[in-house]
């Protein structure tokens, strides 16, 4: 069955869950970015999967929080040098 539409207006105060893949370049692998994320923003972080090597760190992260907090958290992560993708990875195709 098709999922029921959930298209209520999106407010900045709406609490939402966002699922992301984070990819860390080698220079950031040692930094406790997820700990910092939890302190800088009012969000709950939940690591669902991860793989860390000398070359790359890959983390699957769930974020729960108000939309504006989640958006700010993603902005901070990307500014810090982390590649942030939705769990779908490439939603855009050729």
């Amino acid at each position, binding site marked *: *069955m*098709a*999922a*029921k*539409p*959930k*298209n209520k207006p*999106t407010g900045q105060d709406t609490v939402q869950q966002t*699922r992301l*893949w984070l*990819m860390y*370049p080698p220079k950031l692998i040692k930094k406790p970015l997820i700990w910092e994320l939890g302190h800088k923003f009012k969000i709950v972080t939940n690591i*669902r*999967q991860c*793989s860390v*090597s000398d*070359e*790359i760190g*890959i983390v*699957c992260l769930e974020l729960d929080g108000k939309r504006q907090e989640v958006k700010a958290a*993603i902005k901070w992560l*990307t500014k810090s040098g982390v*590649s*942030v*993708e*939705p*769990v*779908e*990875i*490439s*939603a*855009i*195709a*050729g």
Partner: protein
Amino acid sequence: MSEKHEGFMKALKCRECGREYPLAATHVCEFDFGPLEVAYDYDRIKKSLTKAAIQSRPNSMWRYRELLPVAGEPTVGKQVGFTPLVRADRLAKALGIRELWIKNDTVNYPTLSFKDRVVSVALSRSVELGFKTVACASTGNLANSVAANAASAGLKSYVFIPADLEQGKIVNSLVYGANVITIKGHYDEVNRLCAEIAGKFGWAFVNVNMRPYYAEGSKSMGYEIMEQLGWNIPQHTVVPMASGSLLTKIQKSYQEFTKLGLVSESAYSIHGAQATGCSPISVAQKAGLDFFKPVKPNTIAKSLAIGTPADGFYALRVMKETGGAADDVTDDEIREGIRMLAENEGIFAETAGGVTTAVAKKLIASGKIPANDSAVLCITGNGLKTLDAVVGHVGKTREIKPSLREFEAILASEEKVGA
């Protein structure tokens, strides 16, 4: 879960942990976020899908319908597929290989790219699941295909494209009456917004929540290649890589036909082709890594410009398992590839076809595809879609007055050059 078969499908299955899910519009495993893939009842398929049955059916990708993820008869894109497999002797000579074939999806119906295969599957399944609105986010070919196939099925469609896309590509979606939304912003932001839209509106987003079904459509290209080669698996297949999905599905098609006894088991290699300006999978393969590093695309091959390929990890695994290799080519080499294919075989491919041809040239020259072997190149889209990439690079016209003398002068100068 309790098994409820639909057609020849058994369930959706996580590619990582193997957990099974109902055959709904869902795409990631709730436990490890691994991608979901359609699992089939091959015992039942074996009884139904024989060579004779296939050959008795119309010439479309749906002649293999038991292996495609729809429960009943397809309702969208019934004429898609069964494109020509062309014996390419002149190009073989130019590339230095004994035998070469072109799987020519530049003439796929209705929008001249292989995307019609995946879209007809995704939309047929969407209709079965009760969706009235379909959507996609694309940089070109997928948008055109969703717009056209949705129009033919009477479905409402939303197509999301980057704001800086060429006018030609936008017209190719608008003409079908699709709702075309252009999004300003960096690729990452656009990508995240599209994922959010897909989750929020309850539409069939073909390459997000319908992805397990959509991706299976690519297998039809592999089935056709084997049937057109006289029920044989080619020794080498060269496949362009964007997300890497097509390459993994070509392998799945070879495995399935082998499992069903439709082809004999034989050794084969599947090779991947990328543009140097967006080559995360190729770079990883050449470095012997089993993971890729995301990149920011900068290439004329827009249809392959996916910096974070969703199936990159799996594509690397397929190449490793089959002894395949990957390589990448510059924009100039891509244009040369387009010209070689056009001048030798009369096939005008879009930039992705130039990538595949130019990478095949490199792989043959380096011996990774041995000169005495046979290869198939998967050419996935029509050159009329990317004219901008070759304008000014394919020779010049020569103008004359309506005078026979002037024309003879041109011929004479050519003979002089040729002498």
